[in-house]
């Protein structure tokens, strides 16, 4: 079954308290020189073929429900071959809305 991955990350300018807490924990564990930002990964399985219409639908709900574009950016990838888990880019499928920078 075709699978689509939507990755949501806080925009770079946005404070990420969770990522900061993880970065702090790494330092306490002795891992120096790492900075972490935390996001979300959604795996969406699609009934039937992954056609233009389905792609448009996924882009629409990624933009309205999965991500809040006031504070988050998202990327959409299609995983065409589950077995090899090779992520193949589907034309027109990558979306990262560039909004005005957040204070």
């Amino acid at each position, binding site marked *: 079954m075709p699978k689509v991955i939507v990755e949501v990350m806080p925009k770079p300018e*946005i*404070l990420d*308290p*969770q990522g*900061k*807490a993880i970065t702090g924990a790494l330092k306490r564990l002795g891992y120096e020189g790492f900075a972490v930002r935390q996001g979300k990964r959604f795996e969406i399985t699609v009934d039937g073929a992954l056609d233009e219409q389905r792609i448009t639908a996924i882009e629409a709900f990624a933009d309205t*429900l*999965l991500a*809040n574009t*006031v*504070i988050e950016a998202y990327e959409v990838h299609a995983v065409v071959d589950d077995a090899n888990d090779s992520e193949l880019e589907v034309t027109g499928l990558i979306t990262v809305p560039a*909004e*005005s*920078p*957040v*204070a």
Partner: protein
Amino acid sequence: MARIGVVTFPGSLDDVDALRAVRLSGAEPVSLWHASDSLNGVDAVILPGGFSYGDYLRCGAISRFAPIMDEVIRGANEGLPVLGICNGFQVLCESHLLPGALMRNEQMKFTCLTARLRVETNDTVWTCNFAPGEEIGIALKNGEGNFRADRETLKRLEGNDQVVFRYLDNPNGSLNDIAGITNERGNVVGLMPHPEHNVDPLVSDTQDGEVFFRSLLSFLDATASV
């Protein structure tokens, strides 16, 4: 008698307190259900605090698509008074009835205290009985009350006098100490503190929450007599 609706979502916690505060203010409280598509002709709507849908995905993100929200959004755009408290504020931001977003508190801690606030504007339906600059104390309890907006939005909010409440001691990292905002029209107000918890001397150290409800009733009286 003014009829004020309070929406219950799955996971709302403070809907009953809000209904009680409405009753104590002398108005008629009306319970509204998230899955309904009718506001039952109420004169105003309160979106209460809590953890609707367990805060899954993002606070308020799933509630925003509840059937009743279509009616709340339609009403709000036509001037219906709407107050979003805590989770209700988050729902209003997710619905784009108010700009910006609420994120995890800067210090990553759940905050529970009486927040000292300054009323920045009384030019809203829900604050018209306050004096501008008045300092009040209202219960605050949340983990994600950190107000964020892009620079342009922030400039617009400040320029249009849409910042309604500011923290005197910012407890969560909110930009410009913002505790509550309004839309351009002044009929939709959202804030993280809980005015419905500050209406009864038995359980609260201030009764400053009463003024929210009195403000609404003054507004409804004034518009009814026009």
